[in-house]
């Protein structure tokens, strides 16, 4: 891993605030992601992790604060610039978010229709689709519908869909939640092999301590609407602060 200190961050969030009415979800959240790093973000359910990551990719608009991705302030971008930036960012949604009226193949082809800048206009998408499916070990599922897949398979197809544009950054929103421990482990191994193969930088949101232990280079705990604590897994799990300790029981 690259040491964080002597490197410029590719994602930087400064003083992010976001409320829904009286519900103040984020009140000054800061973080930075460095190249080649796996950053794990932990926090209780409802603490605003998904909101934070949606602000990061421009799905939610922050009330205040700056978000810089690869040197660009995403809240000042034109729509087409944002779209272009998004080709470099993969997003694995918490619930997989496969298009359930489309087959697995069409799901994977979908990001290729508009994000043509990166690869040009593709006549035959089959090789790209197959490569993405091979990465997640589900080549045989190409003609199935999402309703015919199990939860774990859906998660893997969703991962394949985020990989198809070969993004530099991948955002995982709870990649292992709702899966059995064995499938979780498979997904984690998959994430690690992808990281190695494409040298991506990742933000991983999770509740899963085992997942964090294996994958995290660095961790941020989102408690009380801010980045409450930060450090390696070893450092945080040894902490005496009761709020931090609660996560590692």
């Amino acid at each position, binding site marked *: 891993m690259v040491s964080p200190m002597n490197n410029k961050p590719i994602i930087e969030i400064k003083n992010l605030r976001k409320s829904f009415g009286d519900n103040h979800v984020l009140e000054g959240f800061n973080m930075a992601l460095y190249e080649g790093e796996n950053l794990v973000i932990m926090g209780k359910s409802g603490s605003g992790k998904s909101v934070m990551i949606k602000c990061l990719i421009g799905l939610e608009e922050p009330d205040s604060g700056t978000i810089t991705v690869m040197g660009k302030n995403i809240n000042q971008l034109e729509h087409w610039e944002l779209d272009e930036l998004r080709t470099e*960012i993969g997003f694995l949604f918490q*619930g997989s978010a*496969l298009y*359930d009226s489309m087959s697995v193949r069409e799901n994977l082809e*979908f990001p290729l*229709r*508009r994000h043509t800048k990166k690869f040009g206009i593709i006549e035959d998408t089959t090789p790209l689709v197959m490569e993405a499916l091979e990465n997640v070990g589900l080549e045989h599922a190409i003609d199935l519908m999402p309703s015919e897949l199990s939860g774990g398979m859906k998660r893997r197809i969703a991962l394949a869909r985020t990989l198809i544009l070969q993004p530099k950054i991948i955002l995982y929103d709870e990649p292992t939640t709702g899966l059995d421990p064995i499938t979780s482990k498979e997904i984690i191994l998959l994430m690690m092999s992808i990281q190695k193969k494409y040298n991506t930088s990742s933000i991983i949101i999770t509740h899963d301590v085992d997942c964090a232990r294996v994958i995290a280079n660095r961790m941020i705990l989102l408690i009380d609407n801010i980045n409450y604590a930060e450090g390696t897994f070893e450092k945080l799990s040894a902490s005496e602060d009761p709020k931090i300790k609660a996560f590692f029981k």
Partner: protein
Amino acid sequence: MDNNSKVAESFKNFLIEIGELSYFTSRFFKELFNPPFELKEFLRQCYNMGNRSLLLVCVTGFIIGLVFTLQSRPTLEEFGAVSWMPSMVSISIIREIGPIITALICAGRIGSGIGAELGSMRVTEQIDAMEVSGTNPFKYLVVTRILATTMMLPILVFFGDAIAIFGSAMVENMKGNVSYLLYFNQVFDSLQFSDLIPTTFKTFFFGFAIGLVGCYKGYNCKKGTAGVGLAANSAVVYTSMLLFVIDFIAVFVTNIFYG
């Protein structure tokens, strides 16, 4: 909360809803003319809607024509005016009954389907996923569907009307020994161009209303599976109300021009 403030509250919500719907409509027209155009998805939607509703519309139309003729026959007989049957049936079906019944059926069939489909796509974050993958979900999902309902409803109404008049002709053929040829001759004699133009216009608006409200309710669906049910349900309720309002306005306007 006392009753007065409850009424005020619901009136306020109603106004907010109208405002949001207007904004949604203006966004539709704005995005309609912006490339890229999702032609393939539009055609797919047209095909789906026609395919799903045609049989239902035809069966209902047939029964309406049949029952309408059977019910009005005794009264007309009493006045010795059975020969007026073809013109009465065709005018009332083409001007009013055909469009409104077909539109109501499509509100139930297509409108609720759109509400539920877009609602569940919203809830399961599929719409967000589209946005992230560089496709404008409003264009891809909403614009194509509203256009498709606007185009398809007049076609469905045409089929519904034709089959309803055929149903009526069948009754006359059996009960009154009127030949089909004679019946249809009389139908075409009594119809004028001024009957067809306003009613066709009206059906475009009906189709637009069905697509618009279904998409609006689905696209702005609240989180949770209960939200999806509510979106589908309120799509039908609001569309039906809106259809009658449009119908009322259409009659009004028609009277100004032709009255």
